[in-house]
């Protein structure tokens, strides 16, 4: 039955619908915070809107610029989508252990997230467009800023749980206490760094619409753009799932163990991320770098050292 689990729940079909649902939820929440409706007409309350956008993009003309490097340009969206979906198999959704869990899968998740950021840079570089180049450079610079605090606060729960596996952390939390209560600072830093990784306001610098048109996405169109947007939705699910699994206890909680708990926590985490998106203006890349290195990294290190003190 492992095949059914991979294909349906909590495998591909579930993850795809979760990605579309998360995008709808995010757009609706941001719209309501801004006193407007959001998606409304496609499906009940507009819930099919992300799927309709995806299908529409698939049907549009797909242009590869004449001077772009053809093979990496075509491969990049597919690779990004694959890399964005892979870590989701390591997240426990309906039981205490995920579909794929082994000691060290947290490190693999962190590594794949860095790879995605690197792929953005490569994709921008092979588009040979001025705006794309600027967007790619900004994406690379941004990575210098948030990678270190992000990795530190993701290791924090692993240290507390004594296990380098996401499922191990969830299991530890189900027996002891939710880690958000003992490491609240880590949770806050994780939310901010995940916003930077997802390239959302206030850190959507590589795709800043009003400055460099679409940034690194500028030459991707049609099918490639559809895949990239889907990858971005998967990353949102991944970010929320990481927040849930590492700090909020995964699928355990009020109704003991069930995927509904995971679902409710997903909605809460997406609400936090959407709220932060509606609240701020966009930073400049040099302000991001100085802010992360001046504030976030020391605070993350402080959190880790407090862990050691607490366990003494």
């Amino acid at each position, binding site marked *: 039955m492992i095949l059914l689990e991979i294909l349906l729940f909590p495998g591909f079909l579930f993850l795809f619908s979760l990605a579309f649902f998360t995008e709808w939820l995010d757009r609706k929440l941001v*719209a*309501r*915070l*801004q*006193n*407007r409706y959001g998606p*409304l007409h496609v499906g009940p309350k507009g819930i099919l809107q992300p799927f309709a956008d995806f299908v529409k993009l698939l049907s549009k003309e797909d242009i590869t610029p004449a001077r772009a490097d053809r093979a990496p340009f075509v491969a990049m969206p597919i690779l990004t989508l694959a890399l964005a979906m892979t870590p989701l198999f390591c997240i426990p959704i309906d039981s205490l252990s995920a579909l794929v869990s082994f000691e060290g899968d947290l490190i693999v998740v962190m590594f794949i997230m860095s790879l995605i950021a690197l792929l953005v840079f490569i994709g921008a570089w092979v588009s040979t467009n001025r705006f794309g180049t600027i967007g790619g450079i900004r994406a690379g610079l941004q990575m210098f800023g948030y990678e270190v605090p992000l990795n530190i606060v993701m290791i924090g729960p692993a240290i507390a749980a004594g296990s380098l596996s996401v499922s191990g952390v969830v299991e530890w939390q189900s027996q002891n206490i939710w880690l958000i209560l003992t490491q609240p600072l880590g949770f806050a830093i994780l939310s901010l760094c995940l916003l930077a990784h997802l390239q959302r306001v206030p850190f959507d610098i590589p795709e800043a619409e009003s400055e460099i048109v679409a940034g690194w996405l500028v030459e991707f169109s049609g099918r490639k753009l559809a895949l990239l947007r889907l990858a971005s939705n998967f990353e949102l699910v991944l970010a929320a799932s990481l927040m849930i699994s590492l700090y909020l206890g995964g699928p355990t909680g009020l109704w003991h163990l069930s995927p509904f708990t995971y679902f409710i926590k997903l909605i809460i985490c997406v609400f936090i991320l959407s*709220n932060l998106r*509606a*609240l701020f203006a966009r930073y400049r890349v040099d302000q991001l770098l100085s802010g992360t290195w001046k504030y976030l990294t020391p605070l993350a290190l402080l959190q880790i050292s407090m862990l050691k003190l607490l366990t003494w």
Partner: protein
Amino acid sequence: MAMERELFRSLRRKPVTLRFPYERAQPVEGMRAKVSWEIEKCIGCALCAKICPSSAIELIGKGRKAGIRYSVGRCLFCGECVDICPTETIYTTTEFELAFTGPKQMIVEFRRPKKRRKTTSEK
């Protein structure tokens, strides 16, 4: 962080968007929109055609039997024709939803109804 309270307040309020076509904006009284003619009062002086800044009004024929050809596409909705007409033939309506499907539909003609000729038995 300064806008956080306002954001939560917006969550509770109804969105300000009007869901056209189910909810429509109500026209205000005195709004300047498409104009119309009561063609029986027209004396054919052509002052409206002369004063229109965008030449949206044309007379069909001459004198007291003249009709009016009004191009809504060219109209600025300024209301100068309403002000200058000596017999108050022209009046403003509140029709502002003026989307057309082709250039021919943009032209509205006002003609006088033809008088019925008396037949020999009626004389």
